[in-house]
């Protein structure tokens, strides 16, 4: 029986609308597949034991941290374009929402119109204080580990933070915290926020080295 077979690639349709060259809508599938079965994040002690060279260890620690950065719970709100993603399959957020001039949504559809400060009983909409998009300069979707690393170290692109502040942010920010307690059956980021912060601290203390451009975890 004749049926429609196979997905149609968007590229086959001709022009795909892009707001700016850098804000092309992200690919649907994650750049690196989500490992749903592994909640573990390897600790700094593991890298201490297995990577004696400081520079290599620093890079390996950052690469480990990208398992959090690039996890859907985090990268979905660090898009390159103007809309967040949703779900482990990282489709476009529905209802349709847009970044707005302050990364907090457009009038009438502000992020906090729906997303609350605290977890909700019975409602599945994710909630954490000051729900919003990361600024465009902090886009991680489609980035290599090297690219994310450079961005995080660059005060012009990391919100003017020192590396110590980065560690603080990783350890204590409540929106970051949401990634590990996302509620409503969502797959949490690997490990725990505390362990993640330790990894980031260990990375800073080992020299904050960036992985090579082609490095993948």
């Amino acid at each position: 029986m004749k049926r429609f077979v196979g997905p149609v690639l968007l590229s086959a349709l001709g022009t795909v609308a892009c707001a700016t060259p850098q804000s092309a809508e992200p690919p649907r599938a994650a750049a690196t597949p989500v490992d749903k079965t592994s909640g573990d994040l390897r600790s700094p002690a593991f890298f201490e034991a297995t990577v004696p060279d400081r520079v290599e260890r620093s890079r390996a620690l950052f690469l480990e941290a990208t398992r959090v950065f690039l996890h859907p719970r985090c990268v979905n709100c660090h898009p390159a374009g103007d809309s967040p993603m949703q779900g482990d399959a990282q489709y476009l957020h529905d209802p349709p929402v847009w970044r707005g001039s302050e990364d907090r949504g457009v009038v009438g559809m502000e992020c906090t119109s729906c997303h609350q400060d605290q977890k909700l009983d019975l409602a599945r909409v994710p909630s954490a204080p000051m729900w919003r998009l990361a600024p465009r300069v902090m886009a991680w979707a489609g980035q290599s580990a090297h690219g994310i690393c450079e961005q995080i170290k660059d005060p012009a692109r990391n919100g003017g933070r020192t590396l110590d502040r980065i560690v603080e942010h990783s350890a204590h920010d409540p929106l970051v915290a949401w990634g590990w307690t996302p509620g409503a059956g969502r797959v949490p980021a690997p490990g725990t926020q505390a362990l993640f912060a330790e990894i980031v601290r260990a990375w800073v203390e080992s020299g904050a080295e960036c992985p090579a451009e082609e490095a993948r975890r």
Partner: protein
Amino acid sequence: MTVKLQVNGVEHAVDVDPDMPLLWVLRDVLNLTGTKYGCGQALCGACAVHLDGQVVRSCVTPVQRAEGRAVTTIEGLSADGSHPLQRAWVALGVPQCGYCQAGQIMTAAALLAGKPKPTDDEIDRSMAGNICRCGTYPRIRAAIRKAAGIADD
């Protein structure tokens, strides 16, 4: 627990769980039934009200978030149906079943308060969270433009 909130300019003290969604406080406790339940998951916009002028979806907004702030519902948008959007909605015969329209109007009111002359794209983006199953979208667009004083092309 007693939660104090101001709704349409009137102070209320309600004895409710602070986590009770604002929607049910409005509807079941204050009997302001103009704000509607459509989905309970912030997906449809029927429950849209203003909190200090910003749209919130009251079905997922805990009433304690409204404490000390001003809530405006459709009943409070104007004293007598005279808001330009309400007038435009009536003039153009926008509603069909009418159920989604309170939420539509509240969202549109916030839009026009923030952007008095929105572009078509801005209208569609701000209204994207309000579903209408009867399909009144063409007239919603036209009524927002009319209320904003944007001439037809």
